[in-house]
C-alpha cells in the first residue's frame, strides 16, 4: 500500500511540475498602446500628447469655472498645478472602483466616462449642462491617457 501511495505521489508531483507553470502563465501583455517592442507609443516623439500644452488648456477652458479651489465638486480641483495630482491614479469619489485617470487605460478611467457620458457614471455628464467636449478633444484626452498619462 505504501508503495502505491508513493507512486501516486510521484505521479501527482510529476504532473504538478509540468502543469503548474502552465497554469501560472498568463501574464503576457495585450500590447495595447505599445509598439512592437513593448514600449509606449508616443513618449519622446512629436506625437506625444503634452499634459501642460494639450490637456490643461482643456480644463482651463471647460472645467475650472466649477472645478476650482477648496470648494471644487468632489474635491476635484482642475486648475493648473493641482489637476494632475487630483486625477492620475486617484480613485473616483463617485465610483471608487475606478481611478479618475488610470495610465494606459482610457476605457477604465472615470474621467473619460464622465466626459463621454457613459451609462456607468453617477451624476451628470461633464461639463455640467454642456456644451460637451468635441470628439477630437475627447480623443486627445484618451490619447494622453493611452500614452501613460504623463505629467509632461
Amino acid at each position, binding site marked *: 500500500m505504501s508503495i502505491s501511495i508513493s507512486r501516486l505521489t510521484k505521479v501527482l508531483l510529476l504532473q504538478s*511540475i*509540468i502543469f503548474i*507553470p502552465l497554469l501560472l502563465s498568463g501574464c503576457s501583455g495585450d*500590447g495595447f498602446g505599445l509598439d*512592437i517592442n513593448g514600449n509606449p507609443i508616443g513618449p519622446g516623439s512629436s506625437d506625444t500628447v503634452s499634459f501642460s500644452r494639450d490637456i490643461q488648456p482643456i480644463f482651463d477652458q471647460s472645467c475650472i469655472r466649477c472645478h476650482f479651489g477648496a470648494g471644487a465638486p468632489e474635491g476635484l480641483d482642475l486648475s493648473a498645478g493641482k489637476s494632475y495630482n487630483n486625477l492620475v491614479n486617484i480613485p473616483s469619489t463617485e465610483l471608487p472602483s475606478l481611478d479618475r485617470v488610470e495610465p494606459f487605460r482610457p476605457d477604465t478611467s472615470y474621467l473619460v466616462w464622465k466626459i463621454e457620458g457613459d451609462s456607468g457614471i453617477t451624476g451628470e455628464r461633464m461639463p455640467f449642462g454642456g456644451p460637451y467636449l468635441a470628439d477630437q478633444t475627447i480623443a486627445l484626452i484618451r490619447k494622453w491617457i493611452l500614452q*501613460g498619462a504623463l505629467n509632461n
Partner: protein
Amino acid sequence: MVGKTEKLAGSVVLLFLFISTLSSGVAKAEPYLAARTKNKCGQCHVNRTGGGMRTPYGFVYSFTQLAAAHIRTDKSTLFDPNLNENIRLGVNFRYSRIFNFGAKDSAGAKSNPQDDFAIPEANLYVQTRLIEDRVTLYLDQRVSEGALTRELFLLWEKLPGNGYFKAGRTLLPYGLRLLDDESFVRQETNYHYDRHDLGIEIGLEPGQFSLVGSLTEDNFSAVSYYIWRGIRAGVSFARNTSKSDDYTWGGFGTLVAGRFTLLGEIDFIDQEGVKKRAYFSELDLLLRRGINLKVVYDLFDRNIKIPLDRDGQERVTIGLETFPIQFFQVGLFYRFNSFIPQNISGNEDQAEIQFHLFF
C-alpha cells in the same frame, strides 16, 4: 558488463529519440547541479563563480554521478584531460537543432520561421598551474565562429578566509550563472555569458558563505550567498556607468527536497531611467540517475509603470536533460513564448534537441 552498459546506453538514446518525436526545449541551466549537491560553484568549476572548465572533482563527478552509464572497455584506460602535471584541458561543445514554430500577429499575419542548426557553445579551456593549488593561469576561449577570449585571468587562491583574487578578463558575477543567456534575469540584467570585461575580482568564501565582488572600468557587481543544508539564499547588486548610471539588484535562492530542486531569482533593474523587473523559477526532478526533468518559468516586466497585463512577457520551458554516458549530454526541450500580440517573434514557440560534449 560491457554489453550490459552499452545496451543500457542504447536504450536511453532510443528513449530520447522516441520522446523527441513527442516534445522537446531550450533551457540549459546547470546551477541546479550545484544546488542539488549543496556545493559552491567553485567545487566543480575552476572559475570560482561557476561555468566553464571543470575541476578534477567536477570531472570525476560528471562520470561517476551524472552519467547513467559508464562505458569502459577492458583495454581502455580512464580518459585523462591533464597534458602534464601543470597543464590541464577542458571542452564544452554544444550542437543544437532548433525548431521554430510560427505565430500570428494581432492582424492575423503569420510568421514564417526558419529552423536552425546552431553551435551555441564551442569553448576550449586551458588551466596552467603556475604554483600548485595557489596560482593558476586560466583561459576560456571560444573556438567557433566569432572566436573570442571569454576569460583569461590569473587566479590566486588560498588567501585568508578561503579567499581568492582574479585579474584579467572575466565574466561578471551576478545572480545565478544560468547557461540560458536568453533567460530574462540574464538577458535583461545584462549579466550573462557574453558579458565579460577586463578587471579584477575578489572572493571570500569561508565555510558555507560566499561573497564575490568584481570591478571593471565602468562596472561593479557583487554576489553573496549562504548555504544551509538544502537551502541557498543570496543577493546580488550591480552598478554600471557605461551608458548611464544604471543599477540592478535582486535576490536568488535554491531549495533541495529529495529528488526535487527548486531555483528562483528576482531582479530589479533601473536602466536609463526605466525600472524593470525580471523573474526566474526552475524546478528539476531527478527521475533517475542521468535523467533530469526540468520546468522553467520566466517573466519580464519591461516597464513597471505599465501594467503587466499590457507589456508582460513570459516563457515556459519543459525539458528532459540526460547524461546517457560519460562526457555526453542530450537535452530535449519545448518552450512556450508569450508576448504582446504585435510582436510575432516573441510568440513563436521553440523546440530544441541539443547534444553536449564536455570534459
